[in-house]
């Protein structure tokens, strides 16, 4: 398949459709707008990275970009926090820190810091929900020096104990502070309500699970997952692809395959769809979240759902903003939509912040909008506007070489077709009002939503009474093992 050609075709199609839209889209009061010229967008061929599969299974994506004298690379490694044991939640967070800060066989992490910072370079590692990463960034003349450090960290991490302790301290600080911020509470609890509190996508580290993580766990994790056949390696910047390919083949040619990372089957057990309340006395605004399960991105309805999301709750011209912010002045921050992720179901989430006194009005507003989406789904102008918003901004999906690389790495990582972006464009373009009405019926079930309010109980008063049974959701932070109570100052109610 010739990627360049297909992209060129795609852009051609896009410019045509833009011109057609421009014709009918604008009939506003301002006659000056009619005189504005919108020529077709110049033909644009996004540069597709060179894809190489090494004999040991590592997938390499090389993206030359000679604009600036920089080279950046990132390896995405299969396995992530969703695979860590429930008794050790936080393991991958700590691993993501200490893989780099713990240094290598020959150098401590601090020595690496000094070496790299003197060159304004970075080698960093990170732990995420479904993968871990190791990356570098440097000025071109420093590439050889920095790549050596990168390889050293990749191949010989030492996971020194002092840095494990440091990472644990920092994670404990996050735990101690997680009830200080209302938005953080609301997002965390809403995720737990949508997926179920013990679901691997909704678990949060506790003092006990952090304390349970040992150096052996980190070493073992590294041995289990860091194998070439579990890795996608993207490099972007000012280099020659042939020379870079040779350098990488030389570095990894003799690295043998290892066991494949498992693909987890994770079930969702949403909490009972009812009203939940978390009291927080030091705020004067309620954070309202309504959640249920979303979809996976490879769902054939994804494109229609995207269009519906734009019309419903994304951006300043969406229904939620128009009705609840602009028309009613109820909120500064309001939005929502059917969430999707690449390899598991996302969260269908609606959220807003409104003053304590209008908490009930805010909930009623969100519920009405949800019902209206089924009864009066976007069509005509709303549909056209949502599609134009997506399609006219489509260029921003690939307006830098680095973005193209990142997109391609995602498709590669999740096993999506590499031309997913083109399919996306086509899918959006052919979405009709009937599609929207159909997906609205299919995916919106108001009775399945859990509703959460985090707010000031005194100021809210009895507004939640009319919402049916209200369950209090306990956010007390469990004390560290061996201590009778939480560390000084943590909230308990």
């Amino acid at each position: 398949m010739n990627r360049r050609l297909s992209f060129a075709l795609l852009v051609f199609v896009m410019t045509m459709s833009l011109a057609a839209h421009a014709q009918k889209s604008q009939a506003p009061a301002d006659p000056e707008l009619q005189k504005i010229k919108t020529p077709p967008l110049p033909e644009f061929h996004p540069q597709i990275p060179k894809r190489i599969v090494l004999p040991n299974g590592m997938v390499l994506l090389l993206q030359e970009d000679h604009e600036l004298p920089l080279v950046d690379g990132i390896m995405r490694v299969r396995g992530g926090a969703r695979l860590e044991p429930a008794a050790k939640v936080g393991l991958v967070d700590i691993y993501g820190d200490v893989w780099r800060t713990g240094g290598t066989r020959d150098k401590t992490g601090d020595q690496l810091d000094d070496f790299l910072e003197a060159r304004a370079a970075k080698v960093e590692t990170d732990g995420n929900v479904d993968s871990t990463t190791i990356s570098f960034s440097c000025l071109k003349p420093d590439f050889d020096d920095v790549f050596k450090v990168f390889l050293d960290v990749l191949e010989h991490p030492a996971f020194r104990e002092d840095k494990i302790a440091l990472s644990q301290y920092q994670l404990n600080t996050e735990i101690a502070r997680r009830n200080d911020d209302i938005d953080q509470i609301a997002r965390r609890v809403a995720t737990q309500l949508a997926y179920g509190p013990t679901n691997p996508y909704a678990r949060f580290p506790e003092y006990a699970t952090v304390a349970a993580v040992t150096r052996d766990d980190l070493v073992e994790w590294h041995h289990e997952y860091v194998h070439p056949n579990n890795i996608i390696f993207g490099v972007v910047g000012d280099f020659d692809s042939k020379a870079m390919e040779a350098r990488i083949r030389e570095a990894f040619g003799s690295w043998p395959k290892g066991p494949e990372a498992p693909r987890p089957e994770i079930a969702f057990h949403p909490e009972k769809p009812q009203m939940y309340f978390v009291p927080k006395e030091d705020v004067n605004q309620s954070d309202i979240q309504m959640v249920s399960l979303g979809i996976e991105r490879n769902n054939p309805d994804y494109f229609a759902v995207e269009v519906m999301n734009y019309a419903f709750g994304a951006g300043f011209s969406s229904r939620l903003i128009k009705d609840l912010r602009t028309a009613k002045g109820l909120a500064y921050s309001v939005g929502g939509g059917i969430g999707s992720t690449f390899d598991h179901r996302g969260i269908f989430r609606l959220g807003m912040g409104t003053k304590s006194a209008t908490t009930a009005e805010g909930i009623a507003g969100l519920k009405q909008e949800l019902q209206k989406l089924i009864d009066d789904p976007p069509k005509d102008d709303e549909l056209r506007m949502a599609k134009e918003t997506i399609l006219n901004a489509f260029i921003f999906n690939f307006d830098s070489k680095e973005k193209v690389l990142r997109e391609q790495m995602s498709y590669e990582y999740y096993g999506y077709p590499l031309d997913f972006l083109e399919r996306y464009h086509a899918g959006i373009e052919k979405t009709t009002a009937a599609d929207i009405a159909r997906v609205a019926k299919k995916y919106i079930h108001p009775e399945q939503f859990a509703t959460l309010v985090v707010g000031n109980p005194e100021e809210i008063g009895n507004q939640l009474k009319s919402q049916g049974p209200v369950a209090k959701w306990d956010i007390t932070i469990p004390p560290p093992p061996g201590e009778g109570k939480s560390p000084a100052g943590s909230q308990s109610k």
Partner: protein
Amino acid sequence: MKIPLRRFLPALLLVLIVIPAFGQQLDVAAFEKRITVKKLDNGLTLVVMQRPEAPVFSFYTIVDAGSAQDPLGATGLAHMFEHMAFKGTTGIGTRDWPAEKAALEKVEETYAAYRAERYKPVGHDDAKVKQLEEAWKEAIAEAQRYVVPNEFDELLESNGGRGVNAFTNWDETAYHYSLPANRVQLWAYLESERFLHPVMREFYKERDVVVEERRMRTDSQPIGRLVEQFLGGSFATYPYHRPTIGYYSDLYYFSATDAKAFFDQYYVPSNMVVAIVGDVNPAEIIPLAEKYFGRLPTRPQPAPVHTAEPPQRSEREVQLRETAQPFYLEGYHRPNYRDPDDAVYDAITDLMSNGRTSRLFRALVRDQKIAAEAEGFTGFPGTKYEHLFAFDAVPLPGHTPEEMRKAIHAEIEKLKTTDVTDEELKMVKTRAKANLIRGLADNAGMAFQLGLYQLRYGDWRELFYSVDRIDKVSKEDIRRIANKTFSPTNRTVGIIETIAGSHPQGEKEQ
């Protein structure tokens, strides 16, 4: 965990972090060819940078007026106008402009009458207030009939606008978004039209939205509450002691007429820079700018702020007792950004705060194990006027603000008495160069930087010249500035002390 304090000042972060310098691989001459400056007859300055990597462009319109310009009794007005700049024009957002205009005038008349009665100290009549309030609300409902809601936003978004937004801080107000490159004419029309024919439409509902923004950012956040109190304590006069978001009493007072008056006074072409970066051609952009932005009428340049902060003669401290976890913040007065030692403060920022090699990280986080994070940075809360060099630290569980204070002071003492090492100084200078290079690959970031430097210095090249200034910083400079700045009487401290129980400090509304 992210840096807690700077998170509150995203715009500030850009200025702070990316200001630094410039490197051996690139030089100003290379940029001279790609950057064109055009001052229009009405005084508006346009900066165009060609970066034809992809058929898109980004821009920033920066107005040299922020919340420091809020009139007495109208805190939040600069920010309120920023919200209004998305409400459309006399041609966009209306069903019938002449009828809407008359209806909006009625809204202002009824509001003025209501407001006068409401705040009358003598002879105040509740029944009359109620009646006048009703009349005002009726007038609002009447005006609403002519509104096409969110039409301006819809136009931008449906044309492919990305990152459509704006911000206000103490120093400036900025508007920005990105569009596909075939929309330059549309952009030039809309961006000039919003400042040529602004309409204070749906003003009082938007005021409610802004009040919700205040609840979210300030009242419902422990650090938001601390920063407001801290700045109030740090400055006695103009310009940084009042919150950009505004106080409730002012937010519930000011009118659409007040916002329009603010606009008339400060949104003067000579007080504005428009910077555009991307796949754009000056030969095309400049005539478009002349045609559209050239329509903005010339008005007198507003007078600059002349009030200076009197010298601080005693240490000050604000202490919040909260159920939230503890936090420590302190700030020292320093001169404005035109100070000849500005680069020295930048160098100290980098040395104290940048990453795992920074002094505060190594002392408080790595070695003493008392903090999760610690930083020291200049430019708080702005840079245009005399401002603060601030330090803050997030204690680990079980550690106190007092320990942060001692540990930070010990690091400051080292800065005063012992030269930094050659390696440290070299690292600071190298990073400054690399930071600038990394920033160049971002249309929006470059538009903001070029526009801001053009506005603040009258020359975008200053962005690149700042390398020379950082490069010239010596060990002696760092000691000299540390001794000059970090003295106890020049200090204000802000602390969150954790108390048991559950009573808040959040501001009660009227």
